[in-house]
């Protein structure tokens, strides 16, 4: 019976939504939602997959009742490659949002102390659901104080639920003088994790920090400490483990210039652990070391728009392990650099962008990627975009080898109402199993209205994060026909 409650709730909400949507809108009552339906038909086996994600909010100001329904009949899991049948409700919530209180009962996401103390989130594209179900409150009792409090049950694993509690305050000590640029904050969290397979653990994080902002610069810093009561069998045999970390950020924006300099520094010594703790990366490449277990590093980035048609960006990041497991194993050391130049309207109706990035991991790999992108407006309503990308990876460990990938893309847009795109990718990497070494994908997107669009694509998709037709999404590796209908209402 209880399992049917969310289904019945959704049915009632969707039915109510359909009815309310037919009524004239009012300031008190409104409904918003989005729906994305994807149909896949694979080339070789003829397998069919259908995925639908429906988000629906019924707004009775200041309350909002919402659900997110996921229907996989089945879904092709992007990681396991296995077809999964599922009709699920990833979120059900009641929100209250009016000064000075913001409250959620049900599913909520939250971040405390930049993720150094807690981060609950959901990312369907990467198959992660680290949300919490419970209560979340955010209150501003006075102009100079903000408080967050939360408590709930985590959804990391149905078999081993997590108890999550936390809170954060931010104070503005000079607000009485009209200065809101100076603030101090503190945060705390507790995550109790019980697993039938692993020893019980109780992880606590504490953090304190400050921020000072003016028109010309910003400086902020956070220090966080972790204690992990790791119970072997009983509390008597518990082991108390520690970790800590700090993160510093400074941004300079000199007056009368379109120039900014960003500096970030991190030092994370066993601060992380579970995915509930995810501090800033301080890196251009998110896939580099970032689990807050044993790393330090810095980043410096300069962005400038010296003259109207010229936009420049350059940056460098360095990060390395704090210690290694054994003196024989060298530390992981990674250097990264990016640079881009964008020239807009120097040649009328034309945009040219050149981008280059380089990554070097000592004794392991060299990676570089370059991209040239142009767009040209044929008329006020028609534009054409070309993109050519080159990637090269040279691996020196465990075996020396060099790969290169090429990607070319051509898109034609008519007032944004109709977009046709053709993409070709090629690699010289030795295919594993029945993988291919080239991919071709053609897609037509048509906007029925501004809020409703349908796209039909055919060919082979390599998978990963791709930006096409002006929208970035995570794509599954796939061969065949794909139809997608996306709506906002």
């Amino acid at each position, binding site marked *: 019976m209880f399992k049917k409650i969310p289904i019945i709730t959704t049915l009632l909400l969707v039915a109510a939504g359909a009815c309310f949507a037919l009524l004239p*809108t*009012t300031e008190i009552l409104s409904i918003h939602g989005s729906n994305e339906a994807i149909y896949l038909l694979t080339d070789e086996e003829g397998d069919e997959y259908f995925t639908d*994600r429906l988000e629906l909010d019924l707004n009775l100001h*200041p309350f*909002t009742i919402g659900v997110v*329904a996921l229907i996989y*009949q089945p879904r092709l899991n992007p990681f396991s490659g296995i077809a999964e049948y599922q009709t699920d409700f990833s979120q059900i919530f009641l929100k209250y949002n009016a000064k000075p209180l913001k409250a959620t009962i049900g599913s909520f*996401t939250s971040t405390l102390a930049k993720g150094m103390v807690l981060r609950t989130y959901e990312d369907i594209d990467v198959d992660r659901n680290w949300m919490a179900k419970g209560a979340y409150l955010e209150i501003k009792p006075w102009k100079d104080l903000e408080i967050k409090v939360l408590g709930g049950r985590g959804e990391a694993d149905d078999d081993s639920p997590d108890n999550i509690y936390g809170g954060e305050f931010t104070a503005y000590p000079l607000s009485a003088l009209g200065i809101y640029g100076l603030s101090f904050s503190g945060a705390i969290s507790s995550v109790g994790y019980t697993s039938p397979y692993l020893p019980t653990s109780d992880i606590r994080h504490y953090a304190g920090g400050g921020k000072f902002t003016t028109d010309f610069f910003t400086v902020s810093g956070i220090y966080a400490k972790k204690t992990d009561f790791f119970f072997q069998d009983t509390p008597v045999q518990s082991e108390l483990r520690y970790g800590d970390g700090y993160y510093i950020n400074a941004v300079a924006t000199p007056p009368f210039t379109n120039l900014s300099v960003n500096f970030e520094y991190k030092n994370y010594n066993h601060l992380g652990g579970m995915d509930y703790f995810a501090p800033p990366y301080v890196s251009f490449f998110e896939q580099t070391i970032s689990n807050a277990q044993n790393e330090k590093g810095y980043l410096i980035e300069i962005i400038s728009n010296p003259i109207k048609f010229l936009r420049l960006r350059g940056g460098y990041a360095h990060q390395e392990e704090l210690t290694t497991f054994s003196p024989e194993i060298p530390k992981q050391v990674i250097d990264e650099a990016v640079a881009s130049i964008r020239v807009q309207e120097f040649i009328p109706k034309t945009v040219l962008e050149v981008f280059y990035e380089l990554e070097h991991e000592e004794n392991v790999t060299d990676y570089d990627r370059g991209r040239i992108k142009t767009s040209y407006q044929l008329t006020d309503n028609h534009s054409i975009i070309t993109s050519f990308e080159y990637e090269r990876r040279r691996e020196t460990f465990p075996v020396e080898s060099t790969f290169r990938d090429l990607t070319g893309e051509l898109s034609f847009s008519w007032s944004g109402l109709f977009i046709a795109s053709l993409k070709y990718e090629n690699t010289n990497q030795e295919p594993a199993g029945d993988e291919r070494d080239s991919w071709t994908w053609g897609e037509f997107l048509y906007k029925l209205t501004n809020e409703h669009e349908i796209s039909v694509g055919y060919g082979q998709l390599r998978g990963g994060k791709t930006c096409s037709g002006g929208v970035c999404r995570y794509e599954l590796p796939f061969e065949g026909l794909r139809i997608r209908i996306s709506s*906002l209402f």
Partner: protein
Amino acid sequence: MKKILLNSVIVLSLLSILAGLAYAGNAPYFSLKDTKGRWVDSSDLYGNYLIFIMFWSTDCEACKDSMPYLQDIYDDYYYEGLKVICIATDSERTSDRVKPFISGQGYTFTVLLDTDQYVRDTFNVNQEPYYFLINWDGDIPFSYSGFTPGTEAVFKDAIEDALSASEGGDFFGGK
């Protein structure tokens, strides 16, 4: 039974979406900080300005491609009461990159930080960039996803329509 429930959800979803075709919703309330740490409350904006909102993030290239055009739109319609607001949905991990990017590019429109994606969820945005125009009645007469060069003409048409419908919004005064 499960199949009936599933089919019911699908049918009702489609019904709801079809009903929504002719629907112009009331804009949701929000309260967010800008890149200087100041709170911006939608109740101070709705009714006083014509508002053009973009949901974006620093890793969304199409979003950043559209910003020079949004700056032009902001410059062109500022004196007719238009506010351009770019809501960055970067998480706490990457939100420190927002201010350097905006300042370095010299953009002067308002940029707000939605690090918990609370407002993005409130607007039911499922992809980026996503654009909304909110008129002086607090309604959303126009929304749009994606950007390619030329799309700015669609934005300008929507803004012109909203200005015409308001029978002449005046500087800072709305209708």
